[in-house]
């Protein structure tokens, strides 16, 4: 498999038309819609972990079947949520050529991280997705139920993490990792990649499927407060790159740690070629 960024769906396709910038009274329904999204997300998480998720979790079947069921349910709920984000005008997702993502099994899916809802978009396109979730969230009584029934991975330190990841990947779950670690700083292409994704790929002998999230304006970034929904709807185009075959990173000649560095550099190179910088905030885009 080659890594040349050919057949780029995003670049091959007409760029989506930018949305108007809302000011004054026109922003009021957008603001209400934006706040509603947070409310629905929070309530949805709470209600589903009290109703449908326990049913799916305790419905008979092997552990693997039960986890797959919960992952599918989260996938469907997030699909609905992406529809709501689009209805309220926060973000419009363009994901016409993402079959490779939907069909992926037991691979590591990496993506750049421009917005708050990237993981929602990715899971809405994948019926069998897993994530690594920081340990603090596992102590949160509202979240713990969902996280464990979906077979997500707590970050319990490096050595346990690798075993946990191997187990989840063996189950044919795809593992979503944002190598940037946190959302992209506005005005840049991406934050420097941590080597976790590459290390997990090399040590669990797993391919990496790179996803490029292209956005046309900065919205739902880390630098904007949650109660200020974007005035200009964010167009997000989801592009799937060619997979990085783990066999190309042979560790028989060199240490795993070194190969992880090589792979991380190549991943950064791909994103550097494919991603344009997250535009800085501007008021000149008013229409």
């Amino acid at each position, binding site marked *: 498999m080659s890594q040349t960024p050919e057949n780029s769906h995003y670049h091959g396709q007409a760029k989506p038309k930018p949305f108007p910038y809302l000011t004054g009274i026109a922003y009021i329904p957008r603001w209400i819609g934006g706040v509603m999204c947070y409310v629905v997300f929070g309530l949805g998480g709470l209600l589903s972990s009290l109703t449908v998720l326990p049913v799916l979790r305790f419905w008979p079947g092997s552990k693997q079947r039960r986890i797959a069921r919960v992952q599918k349910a989260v996938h469907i709920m997030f699909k609905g949520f992406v529809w709501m984000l689009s209805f309220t005008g926060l973000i419009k997702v363009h994901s016409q050529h993402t079959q490779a993502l939907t069909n992926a099994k037991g691979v590591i899916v990496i993506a750049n991280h421009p917005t708050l809802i990237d993981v929602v978009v990715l899971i809405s396109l994948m019926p069998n997705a897993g994530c690594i979730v920081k340990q603090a969230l596992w102590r949160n009584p509202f979240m713990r139920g969902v996280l464990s029934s979906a077979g997500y991975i707590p970050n319990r*330190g*490096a*050595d346990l*993490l*690798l075993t946990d990841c191997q187990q989840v990947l063996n189950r044919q779950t795809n593992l979503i990792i944002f190598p940037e670690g946190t959302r992209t700083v506005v005005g840049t292409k991406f934050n420097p990649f*941590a*080597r*976790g994704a590459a*290390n997990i790929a090399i*040590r669990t002998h797993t391919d990496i499927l790179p996803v490029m999230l292209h956005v046309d304006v900065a919205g739902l970034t880390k630098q904007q407060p949650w109660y200020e929904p974007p005035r200009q709807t964010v167009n997000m185009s989801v592009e799937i790159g060619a997979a990085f075959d783990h066999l190309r990173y042979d560790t028989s000649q060199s*240490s*795993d*740690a*070194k190969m*992880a*560095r090589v792979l991380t550099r190549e991943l950064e190179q791909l994103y550097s070629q494919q991603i344009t910088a997250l535009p800085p905030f501007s008021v000149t885009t008013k229409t």
Partner: protein
Amino acid sequence: MQNRDQILEMLTQILVDEFEIEAEDISLDASLYESLDLDSIDAVDLVIKLQQMTGKKIQPEQFKTVRTVEDVVNAIEGLMKD
């Protein structure tokens, strides 16, 4: 391998060979995670490598508080005395 210089030499060799670190960046006060850019998975590898080289078992707790090159040297020195 009792004295500190020898321990530092061994550690430097591991860092250069296994982790692509430049020898001139390694000093006693260099921090492993910030200035030498090791991550938590590298730290596990480093412990395994140190165990192989010294033939001593290293408890993860002994390595929890390690931050700098000097901390590693101290930890190894302590192990060799036991």
